[in-house]
C-alpha cells in the first residue's frame, strides 16, 4: 500500500490539469478511407504497448432484469451479455493504441464507423439486428451521425463467416485432389458415371492439345463448331470444360478422376448460390509454368476477395496478431460483442468463451477491475467521473496524440466520436502510475502480467456480503404493487422461516429476490410454498400462495438464462422455465457464490 503516503494536497496541485475531459482529435475511418488508413493502423499498433477500445452498440439490454446485476454468477452474466451481443449491432469501434513512458502517454486514436452490409446477399455479416429505441435517441442527443454510419460504415465478416463464404461467393475454388472422406465403395452407377465423364474429358483434352499445336490452323467456323460439340469454353485466356454435377458425391468422383490428367488439367469447383457444388470446371493448362501461374493467380484472387469481404475484421486480426494487451471499460459486453461479430458464434458456456477469446486475445485488462483495486468506491461507467475520483492521487499524465498532432477544434462535431477510447487509455495510464508510483519506470512485461485480468468475471459492489446462490429465492405473482418493504413485511408474518433476518429486493417490476442469511432457510421456504402439507392449514403464507405467490430457487434462474427465456418480465421467464419439462441436467450444479449488496439491486420505489 505504497499509495498511502500520497497526499491529497499534492494531487489537487498537480493532477487536475490533465484530468479535465479534453477533446482529442480522433481519426474517423469510413468505407472510403479505410484501405488507405490500414497501414497507419498497423504502424500505430506495432509501435504501442497497449490498445484501448470502446464500442458504440445499438442497445445493451431489453428489460431491466437482462442487465448483469449483483445476483449474477459468471455464467449467468455471460449468458446475459451473450444475448445482448448476438442481437445488437456495433455502430462504432473506437480503437486507441497507446504507450506509456513515465508520465507521458502517447495515443493513436481511431474511430471506425461500422455497418453490416449484406454484400453477398447471404445474410452475412448479419441478416438483421435489434435497436433499442432509447439508446438511439441517446446517441442522437450526443450528435451521432446515423447517415454516415449507414451510408459509409465499413462492413466485415467474422472468421467463421469468412470460411463459410468461400463456398458461397460464387468464385471458383481450387479443388483439393486429396479427398478428405475415404470414398465409399463405388457402385456400378459410379463407375458408369466416371467412365462417361472420363471419355468426355479425354475428347476435350485432345481437342485442346490439337488446337494448341496447330496454332490458328483451323478456321473460325470449325473451331466454334468443335467448341459447341465438346462443350468447351474459355476460362480467362484458358480453355475449360464445365461438368455439371448433381451431388457432392459426383463432384468428388470427378475430381478424383481428373487426377489422371493432373499434368495439364486443373479442376475447379463452382459453388451454387446456396447449396454445395454446382459444377466441376476442368481448366486446360498449356504448360507446367502455365499451371503454376494459374494456381498463383487463383490464390491472389482469393486473397483479394477475402480481404474485400473481411472488411473491418482486418483490423481485429491486426489487434489479435499483435498480441498487445487490450484495455476495455466493460470487459464482458465488449468482448462478447467482438467475439460474436468478428470471431464466430458465441459458445454456450463462459469457460469455453474465455478459452476461445484468449486464443484470439490473450491479454485483456478489465479496466473496472483494475479501477477497483485502486479506488474501490468509484463507478467506472462514467469515465469523466472515474477520472476525477482519482484526483486525490498524484499521478500526472501528459497525453500526446501521435497520429494527428493537435487537439481538435471543438466545433467539428463528428470528431467527438471515439473520445472514450482515449479516456480509457488515459485512465489506465493514471491507474498504472498510481499503482507503481514508487517505481516510476517503464512498464515491464512482468508488471503487466499482474494487471492483466485472468478473465474472471466477478460481480462487485459496495457493502457487499458474499452469499451462496443457494440462499436466494425468487418470488413473484402477487398482483398488487408492493414496495420491497411491504413485501418484506408481508413475508415476515407469513412463515416461521422469516423469523430470522432476510433481505428482499425487486429485480424488475414483476419479481423480487429474497436473500436468506442462513443456509437451509431457502429450502424450507421453497418446500413450504410448493407443498400442500407443509403449507399447513392456516397462516398467511397459504393465503399469499392462494393469491398467486410463486417462488423458485436460483437453479430456475440459471435455467431461464441458459434456455434463453428472455421475456420482458423475469416472472414470465421463471414461469416458462418451471413449465418447460425438459429437465436436462445442468453440469454446473454446484452452488456458486455471489456478492450480495443492499445497494445494487434496482429499487423500483424510486423509478
Amino acid at each position: 500500500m505504497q499509495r498511502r503516503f500520497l497526499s491529497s494536497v499534492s494531487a489537487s496541485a498537480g493532477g487536475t490539469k490533465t484530468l479535465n475531459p479534453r477533446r482529442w482529435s480522433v481519426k474517423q475511418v469510413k468505407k472510403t478511407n479505410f484501405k488507405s488508413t490500414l497501414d497507419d493502423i498497423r504502424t500505430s499498433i506495432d509501435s504501442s504497448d497497449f490498445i484501448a477500445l470502446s464500442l458504440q452498440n445499438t442497445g445493451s439490454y431489453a428489460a431491466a432484469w437482462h442487465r448483469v446485476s449483483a445476483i449474477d454468477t459468471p455464467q449467468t452474466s455471460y449468458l446475459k451479455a451473450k444475448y445482448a451481443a448476438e442481437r445488437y449491432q456495433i455502430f462504432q469501434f473506437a480503437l486507441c493504441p497507446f504507450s506509456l513512458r513515465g508520465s507521458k502517454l502517447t495515443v493513436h486514436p481511431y474511430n471506425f464507423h461500422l455497418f453490416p452490409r449484406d454484400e453477398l446477399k447471404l445474410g452475412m455479416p448479419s441478416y438483421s439486428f435489434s435497436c433499442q429505441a432509447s439508446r438511439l435517441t441517446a446517441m442522437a442527443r450526443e450528435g451521432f451521425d446515423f447517415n454516415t454510419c449507414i451510408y459509409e460504415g465499413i462492413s466485415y465478416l467474422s472468421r467463421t463467416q469468412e470460411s463459410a463464404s468461400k463456398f458461397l461467393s460464387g468464385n471458383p475454388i481450387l479443388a483439393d485432389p486429396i479427398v478428405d472422406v475415404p470414398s465409399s465403395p463405388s457402385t456400378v452407377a459410379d463407375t458408369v458415371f466416371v467412365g462417361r465423364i472420363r471419355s468426355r474429358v479425354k475428347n476435350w483434352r485432345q481437342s485442346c492439345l490439337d488446337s494448341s499445336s496447330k496454332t490458328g490452323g483451323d478456321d473460325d467456323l470449325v473451331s466454334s463448331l468443335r467448341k459447341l460439340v465438346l462443350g468447351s469454353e474459355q476460362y480467362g485466356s484458358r480453355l475449360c470444360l464445365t461438368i455439371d454435377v448433381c451431388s457432392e458425391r459426383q463432384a468428388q468422383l470427378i475430381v478424383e478422376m481428373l487426377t489422371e490428367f493432373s499434368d495439364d488439367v486443373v479442376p475447379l469447383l463452382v459453388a451454387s448460390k446456396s447449396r454445395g457444388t454446382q459444377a466441376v470446371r476442368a481448366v486446360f493448362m498449356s504448360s507446367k509454368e502455365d499451371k503454376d501461374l494459374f494456381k498463383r493467380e487463383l490464390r491472389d484472387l482469393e486473397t483479394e476477395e477475402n480481404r474485400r469481404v473481411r472488411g473491418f475484421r482486418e483490423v481485429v486480426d491486426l489487434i489479435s496478431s499483435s498480441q498487445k494487451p487490450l484495455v476495455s471499460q466493460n470487459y464482458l459486453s465488449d468482448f462478447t460483442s467482438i467475439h460474436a461479430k468478428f470471431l464466430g458464434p458465441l459458445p454456450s458456456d463462459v469457460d469455453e468463451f474465455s478459452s476461445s477469446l484468449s486464443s484470439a486475445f490473450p491479454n485483456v485488462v478489465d479496466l473496472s477491475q483494475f479501477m477497483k483495486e485502486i479506488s474501490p468506491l468509484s463507478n467506472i461507467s462514467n469515465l469523466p467521473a472515474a477520472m476525477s475520483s482519482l484526483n486525490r492521487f498524484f499521478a500526472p499524465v501528459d497525453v500526446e496524440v501521435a497520429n494527428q498532432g493537435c487537439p481538435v477544434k471543438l466545433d467539428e462535431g463528428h470528431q467527438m466520436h471515439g473520445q472514450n477510447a482515449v479516456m480509457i487509455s488515459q485512465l489506465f495510464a493514471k491507474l498504472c502510475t498510481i499503482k507503481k508510483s514508487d517505481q516510476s519506470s517503464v512498464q515491464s512485461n512482468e508488471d503487466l502480467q499482474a494487471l492483466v485480468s485472468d478473465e474472471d468475471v466477478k460481480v462487485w459492489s459496495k457493502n457487499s456480503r458474499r452469499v451462496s446462490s443457494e440462499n436466494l429465492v425468487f418470488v413473484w405473482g402477487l398482483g398488487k404493487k408492493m414496495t420491497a418493504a411491504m413485501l418484506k413485511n408481508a413475508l415476515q408474518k407469513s412463515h416461521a422461516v422469516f423469523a430470522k433476518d432476510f433481505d428482499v429486493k425487486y429485480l424488475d417490476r414483476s419479481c423480487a429476490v429474497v436473500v436468506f442469511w442462513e443456509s437451509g432457510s431457502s429450502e424450507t421456504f421453497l418446500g413450504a410454498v410448493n407443498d400442500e402439507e407443509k403449507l399447513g392449514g392456516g397462516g398467511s403464507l397459504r393465503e399469499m400462495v392462494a393469491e398467486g405467490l410463486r417462488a423458485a430457487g436460483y437453479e430456475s434462474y440459471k435455467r431461464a438464462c441458459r434456455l434463453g427465456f428472455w421475456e420482458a418480465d423475469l416472472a414470465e421467464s421463471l414461469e416458462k422455465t418451471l413449465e418447460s419439462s425438459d429437465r436436462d441436467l445442468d453440469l454446473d450444479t454446484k452452488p456458486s457464490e455471489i456478492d450480495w449488496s443492499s445497494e445494487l439491486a434496482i429499487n423500483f420505489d424510486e423509478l
Partner: protein
Amino acid sequence: MRRHKRWPLRPLASVLVRPHLFSSAAETVGASTSTVAAFPLKHVKRSDFETTLTELRSHVKAADFVAIDLEMTGVTSAPWRDSLEFDRYDVRYLKVKDSAEKFAVVQFGVCPFRWDSHTQTFLSHPHNFFVYPRQELAFDPPAHEFLCQTTSMDFLAKYQFDFNACIHEGISYLSRRQEEEASKRLEMLYDEEGVAETEDVKLVRLADTLFAERMKKTLSEWRSQLLHGGNASSSESQKMSTQSTQTVFHHMRPALRLQGFTSHQLRVIQLVLGKHFGDLVYIHANDDKSSCSQDFVVYTDSESDKDNLLVSILQKEAKDERKRVAERKIQSAVGFRQVIDLLSSEKKLIVGHNCFLDIAHVYSKFVGPLPWTAEEFVASINNHFPYIVDTKILLNVNPMLHQRMKKSSTSLSSAFSSLCPQIESSSRSSDPFLEKRVKIDVEVDNVRYSNWNAGGKHEAGYDAFMTGCIFAQACSHLGFDFKHDSQSENLAQNEKLEKYMNRLYLSWTRGDIIDLGTGNSNAENWRVSKFKYENIVLIWNFPRKLKAREIKECICKAFGSTSVTCVYHIDDTAVFVLFKNSELVSDFLTLKQQLESDDGPVTILHPLSKILQGGNTGAADYEAYKEICSSHISKILFSDQAETVGVKSRTRPEPKGETSSETERRENRVGVTNNASDLIDAFLANRVQVEAARTN
C-alpha cells in the same frame, strides 16, 4: 431508378438559401426559374408536427380519398419468414404479424386528394412524416426495441433516406392500447398516493431518527419565526434554509419549499409533520413548465383553514394539476397517432399499393397488439378503416386495367409510369390523349404546382402520391366522371369500386387475397388452396448437403415412387415434403420415430437413414409449422428456429381409425411395397412391425 434524390421544392427562396441540400433542384433553378422543379413534398418532423396537423385536418376532411405509404426498417426477420409457396393463409398472416411487430416504421406518407371542380383537376397534398418510436413517457413500459434488416437499411440508404432526420427529429407515437395503459398507470399512481404514503415509514435507522429530530427542530423554528416574526433564532436554521429549504408563498399561504431531499427523507418529513405539527401541511406539487415536482410545507392558520387547504382546494388542486400535466404529456406522446385517428374518424377512403403489410403496421403501431388470427384482425380493422382500396388489386383484378398496363409489372413505379406518364414526365401539353388523363396538381404550404420533375422514389410521401395518382387514373378508366358527378358522390360507396373494396393481397407472390370488409369472412373461401396441407411433412436438420431431389429419392425408396408429389426447400436446413395423401404423413412420422428409437443395423441400412443421419433430424406435420411461425423468436436458420420453439419430438397424432380409409391405405401400401423393389428384407420386417402396431 434515379440516383439522386429530389428534395422538395418549397418556396424558391429556401432552395436558394440551402443549395447544398437541394443540389439537383438547385441546378434546374439556377438555369432558369421557369423550368420544372423537383417534386414538391412536405417533410414533417417533430418541430412542425402540430402546425402541420391542423392543416392536414382540413385537407383530409375535404379529401375524396387519402393515399398512404410506409417505409419500414425491414420486412422479414428471417429468410424463411418470407412468403413461401406452401404458406397457408393463416401462416401467411402470422408472418405478416411477425413483420409488423418486429420492424419500425420510419416514414409515413399521407397524401389527401380532392377533386377541384373549378380547375377540373385533382389537388393533392403530399406529406412525408418522419416517424420514430421515441419513448417520451418516463413511466413507459420496458425498453422498446425494433429490428433492422440489413438489406432494407441498405435499400433505404441507396435512396438517400435521411436516418438522422428520422432518429433525431422523428415524430413519436403511442398506440391506443399504449395510451390506455399509460392513463391507467397514471391513475393508479395518483390513487395510491396521499392515502398510505406515511403509513409504512418507520424510523428504524439511526440516521432517520437523527434526521427527524433535526427536521422537527428546523420546522418548529421556522414556524415560530413565522408566527413571532423578525429575527432568525439560530444560525443553524439559517444555514439549513439556505441549503435545502426556502420560504415562499404557496397558494397565498406562507410555505417552506423543500429542495434536495430524497424521497425517503421527504417521507420522514411527512411523518414528523403528522406527529408534531398540526398546522403545517405537506404538499407535493408539479411545476407546469419545468415539469419537475416540488415539495412544500404550508402553514395554515386554523383547523378550518387546514381543512380548506387539504380537502377542498389544495391537495386536490395540486393532485389535479399533476394529473393534468401527466395527461398532457400522454396526449403529446400520442404524437403521430393523431394522424391515424384523423383518417379513422373521418372514415375516408384509404388507398395503398400492395398494402396489407402497411395496414398491419398501422394496426400494431397505432391501435394495439395484432390479434392471433386473420379473422380477428379482419373483424377489428374494419372498425377503424372501413374503406381500403389496394391499387395492386385494382390493376391485377380488373381485366381492362390489366390490359392497359400492357403486361408491364404492377410494381408501384412501373404502374405509375404506364398509367400516369403525363405526371411522371410532366409533358401534359404534348399528350394527345390529354382528355383521358386525369390532371393532378400538387399543393404544398399553400403553393400550388402543376409542373415538377418526378423524383424522391421510396420517399413515403412521394410513393403515397404515386399511389393516389394511379388510383385516380384507374377510376377514370373504370368510367368515373369526376367532372359531372364529383363532390356529392362518395367514392367509397360507388358500385364501380365495390368489387375491389377492402380486398388486399395477403400474399402477392401467391395471389392470396384477403377480404377486410366481411367481418364473418370464411378464410377457406378466400382462395382455393392448391395444396392439401395435411399431406405435408416438415423435415429439418437433415445433413446439410442433401438436396431436395435426393430427399425425394430417399422417401420414394421407402414409400414408393409415387408417394411424394414434391419436395420444397424452406431454407438450407429444412424442407416441406408434399405426400400424395395424409396417411403417408403419419406413416412417415411413425417410421421415423421407430427408426430413431432403434439403433440396430436396420436403421443404418434403411433408405431413410440418409435423411436421419446425424441423429438431429426433426420432422413434424403442417400444424407444427404454424406453431413455429407463431413464435416471436426469429432464428435465421429454420432448423434453429424449430429446435428453439421446441417442436422437436412432436409428431402427428395417430389418425382416428376410420375403417374405410384404413383399407384404402392397406391397398395403397401393397402397391407401395411392390413398387419399391429395392427394399431390403430387414426393412420389410420392420415395416410389418409398424403395421402390426397400428392395427392393434
